[in-house]
């Protein structure tokens, strides 16, 4: 997994609350193989009309070309557990989403793919959105070591679970960590299945 330490990137303000994973990637694209790249499906139906014409969504504004960060309102990534929502963000080039709250499953999926869900207070989210809206070249710096976001000459704190922070900083993969516990897992399995006959089905 790619490490996340510090990101200096273009940032796109999406003044939307409850951006659910059905919007991040509509279900009809999810049978496609990842090797095709999922970036073009990101927020597809907010961005494109029936004939594929641009609807003038913020992400497609020339000001936001090459954006690496999205800032949004509360409950980003709510809904379906589809990890494809993170694939769409990642393949588009997004490495960090800033919001006052995230769907739990989305936040977990994000970290497992190296994407930083940076949680800020609702007030700071509004200030960051306003600053990005006002900027000629909307841009910010996210520093995972100091847990700070620098934008428009101001600095904001953000939060992330301490373990997830370390995983992102080091690019750690869960499976490598788990396999160090193979002996404990095997012992637990034996103990667990002996506890009661119904722990093995049927």
């Amino acid at each position: 997994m790619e490490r996340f330490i510090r990101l200096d990137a273009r940032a796109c303000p999406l003044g939307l609350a409850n951006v659910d994973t059905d919007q991040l990637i509509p279900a009809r694209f999810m049978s496609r193989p990842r090797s095709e790249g999922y970036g073009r499906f990101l927020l597809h139906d907010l961005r494109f009309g029936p004939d594929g014409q641009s609807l003038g969504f913020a992400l497609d504004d020339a000001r936001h070309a090459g954006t690496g960060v999205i800032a949004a309102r509360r409950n980003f990534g709510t809904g379906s557990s589809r990890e494809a929502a993170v694939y769409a963000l990642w393949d588009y080039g997004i490495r960090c989403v800033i919001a006052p709250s995230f769907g739990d499953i989305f936040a977990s999926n994000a970290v497992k793919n190296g994407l930083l869900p940076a949680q800020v207070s609702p007030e700071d989210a509004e200030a960051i959105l306003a600053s990005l809206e006002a900027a000629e070249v909307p841009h910010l710096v996210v520093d995972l070591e100091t847990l700070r976001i620098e934008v428009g000459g101001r600095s904001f704190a953000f939060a992330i679970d301490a373990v997830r922070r370390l995983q992102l900083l080091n690019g750690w993969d869960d499976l490598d960590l788990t396999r160090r516990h193979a002996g404990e897992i095997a012992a637990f399995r034996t103990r667990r299945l002996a506890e009661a006959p119904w722990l093995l089905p049927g």
Partner: protein
Amino acid sequence: MGQARTLFDKVWDSHVIVTREDGESLLWVDRHFVHEGSHHAFRQVEARGLPVAEPGLTFGVADHYVPTRNRPAIDNPEIAGMVERLSGNATRHGFRLFGLEDPDQGIVHVVGPEQGLTLPGLLVVCGDSHTSTHGALGAYAFGIGASEVAHVLMTQTLWQRKPKRMRIRIDGNLAPGLSAKDLALHVIRTIGADGARGHAVEYAGEAISALSMEGRLTLCNMSIEAGARCAMVAPDAVTFAYLRSRPLAPQGEVFEQACVAWQALASDPDAVFDRDIALDASAIAPLVTWGVSPEDALPIDARVPDPAAEADPARAGYLEQALAYMGLRAGMRLEDVTVDRVFIGSCTNARIEDLRAAAAILQGRKAVVPGLVSPGSSRVKVQAEREGLDRVFREAGLEWADSGCSMCVGMNGDLVAPGERCASTTNRNFRGRQGKDARTHLMSPAMVAAAAVTGRLTDLRKLAGG
């Protein structure tokens, strides 16, 4: 020992293999359900070259992409590929598959409990957010993403940080005609679509004890729409009666032993919750959603919100965009909203009790709009037909189909057309959820049936008994 524990604490504790210094615990998984959409995870397993660690604890269910008409033929090659890929993975890795032609096939969150695979005290995961459903039986059940599915396939374990505990106590009795769906929408609109984020929810109180198992499954199912990590109901006589004689549940003497053990799965009287919420079921009217989040729910006699009356500009902007998408006028009566079609189905509301409630309204009446009824499982379908419910739906003019996720998520091609408005028993009214530019109103099965009869959002109590 001494320290009082919640139901969640007890189930959590019994699954901890190891807890790291940083607070993350490695948990044992008792049941892992996979479906056609799990293909990304299987690809990750293949890339690692590892086997499935516990095929005996892994179960495949074909539901997300399966057709609901003209089975087993699948016209669309891309969809056929998804269903075949799951079969291939089941064969290759040696786990049981409830496939398209299996008489026990259905929606994973209906099949697990129905088969007796989901039991009190078990840890259940699936790469689907509505896995919270299974908590109705007193299991710790939650949805996971593809990377976690791959991790469970390869190790039968999962790293988790212990969530906070929240109790939602609902006392009082629901008015006649109301159901668990109304309770669920009431909870979500009260605490918000992220109101239970980071929390394991335990439902308690008179209104919960009074719910059937089908109702509890609906309530726990919708808890993810309040952002809950999982939702649980302590097992009781209703749970045991539901599980008795389920095909893959313990049988005979072992079942009796299990019931004794399961009775200990309750929160201690002095257990402390991080949050405690009290609601009154008797104060609830039938609820419908008007917007694009399940928290956008209102009593059927209310009016559509008016952005101009909203002081907070961000909120006003949200309302404006939601009303524009939904094609609604600010301030209009919800009962004046006309619908183009209805859908009765999904892991939320397609169990036998849901079909009975809808059929009770439709009995002897005609639907004035088209609609689809997709039972929660093939077994539910057989039982409904035994009870003659299929005839009620057909005679009312609705289509009676096979079981799958169907028009809740539209992956199998059962879609609401762009701009069409659907009264739906499903769980998500997100933009585009039931199809591009589709407009979804969530409500109970009886309310969907009432909307079918009048062609508008309708208080079912005006039709019940009439």
